């Protein structure tokens, strides 16, 4: 499988690097302080390909912290709040869109 670093990076707006935490699989975001956070608000936001590539490289190198790192789009609100940029990322950030448990008949 092609390494994320060998893949062509295309970004069309503000983006973050996200992955799953290695020990439990929880969704995490790469921070500006070279760590991971479960809160999207803590994510480092990049806007150009070179900085996205650098952030991704740093994230991929931390294989013990998180796995499957990739660049994901975000939207920045007027107050500066970071929000997921597509449905997939909204689901990853907020959880499934259904009740977890089956509904009794």
């Amino acid at each position, binding site marked *: 499988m092609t390494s994320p670093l060998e893949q062509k990076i295309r970004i069309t707006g503000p983006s973050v690097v996200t992955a*799953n935490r*290695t*020990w*439990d*699989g*929880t*969704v995490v975001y790469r921070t500006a302080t070279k760590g991971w956070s479960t809160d999207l608000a803590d994510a480092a936001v990049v806007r150009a390909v070179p900085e996205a590539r650098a952030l991704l490289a740093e994230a991929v190198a931390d*294989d*013990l912290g998180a*796995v*499957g790192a990739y660049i994901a789009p975000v939207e920045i609100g007027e107050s500066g709040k970071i929000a997921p940029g*597509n*449905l*997939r990322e909204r*689901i*990853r950030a907020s*959880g*499934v*869109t*259904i*009740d*977890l*448990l*089956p*509904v*009794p*008949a």
Partner: protein
Amino acid sequence: MYAYDEIDRTLIDERVSEFRDQVKRRLSGELTEDEFKMLRLQNGVYLQLHAYMFRVAIPYGTLSSKQLRRLAHVARRYDRGYGHFTTRQNIQFNWIKLADLPDALADLAEVGIHSMQTSGNNTRNVTSDQWAGVAPGEVEDPRIWSEILRQYTTLHPEFSFLPRKFKFAITASEHDRAAIKIHDIGLRLHKNEQGETGFEVLVGGGLGRTPLIAKTIRPFVHGRDLLSYVEAIMRVYNQYGRRDNIYKARIKILVHELGIEKFAEEVEEEWQHIRNSDLKLEAATIEDIRSRFTYPTYAKLPHMPDELRKAAHDPLFERWRKNSVSPHKVQGYSIVTISLKPVGGPPGDATAEQMDALADLADKYSFGEIRVGHEQNLALPHVAKHDLPALWKALDKIGLATPNVNLVSDIIACPGLDYCSLANARSIPIAQELTRRFANHDTADLIGRLHINISGCINACGHHHVGHIGILGVEKNGEEFYQITIGGRADEKAELGTLIGPSVPYNEVADVIEDVVEAYLALRATPDELFIDTVKRLGVEPFRERVYATR
């Protein structure tokens, strides 16, 4: 039930210790993810959107009550209190932590459950008819042959690194409940003119982005030659199957590109080399495996007990009985299918409490045995007819008496974008909305047998190509859209559905399906003509007109 022998138990225990060590080395940094990925996949561990997903095999869909309780325990202790039964007789846990997996695997191993053959480019969990051993008219119990194949393929060194995953399904009944024609190898057990047991062998079926119905490569292969013949097929595939393109790597592509005749010639040539080798199954070997299956000691019971006669006056019981209870090969007994499709619920999910309660009911009413079907429902295979009213009441108390088996709300759906990292669109909320639209049982009864299958991406885990109505989620400019097909079926007359028109947005899917169903009700020749037969008779055009006339 099949009792594992010492070899199986040792294999499973050793696999747990091996994986415990691998996880430890991964979490210490000794193994990178690149090194670890294949190891975790060999143990059914995927990485999904929110967490790791753990897929556990239920070979040929047979579970004991003890095993079901242990699955409930894993759901409760290591996950979020529920599990998801899949379309290939597996169960998935969606929220498991990597650090907990060795313990979960060890707990399962104690009752003979494992996750081998649930992932990777090897032979997957061999599936079979969930009514195996109890269906009236069955040639013989296909699980004996499923188990032979399971033993033969598990950790088979030559077939552990195939070009792509490889799936077997076996049926021994005229009506195919195992969907053998959409498998890499489908086996239909039957007898030849001499009364000997053998198989019609089909090859090259599969769904995904290139859906193909399997073709018969040999109408009869004697039971003793089963292993040598499937080995010949797999050798030809292993040699010629493409490894350069994941989308062209399944055996169906090879069969399609070579043509079934040429492929059969290659297999025949290979088979002649190995036909009389150690792969020939001795009668004693088959008998040994047969002897490890235990069957209940049935009582002599009346065809129509008083309890059933009395309960027939209750319309709610009758509605459930009509849809959930099927004939058994032994007089006085029934097979009871348990719908995991409650109105508004995720298809195929069961809570730990439901699993525990069902295990108790299996002990009380079904000789401690439960079956899992590819339709994402469960079954109790040996219920005395006089127990049906009491069982129904008990199932109702735990939310497992939805009377919709084989009706429009008995929907097959993959986890979709709510869980799956491959998905483009959600499946479960579409299924939930459809079950609400068709919640009225009188309407559902009026519609009759109708299978809706939903997949959240082209990989087709929801088998949408072979749904009477198929729904495929796609992504268009960041939005969820759905393609609708009709006319597919997965049984002995398997066919792929036909697209009825352009894809529709998420919030219009349920309306479109209602339009399709209303069109069917208006078009059917008689009240008995099933949806699938109306589509076969008229084609898709009348349905297309109805759906798109106002869109």
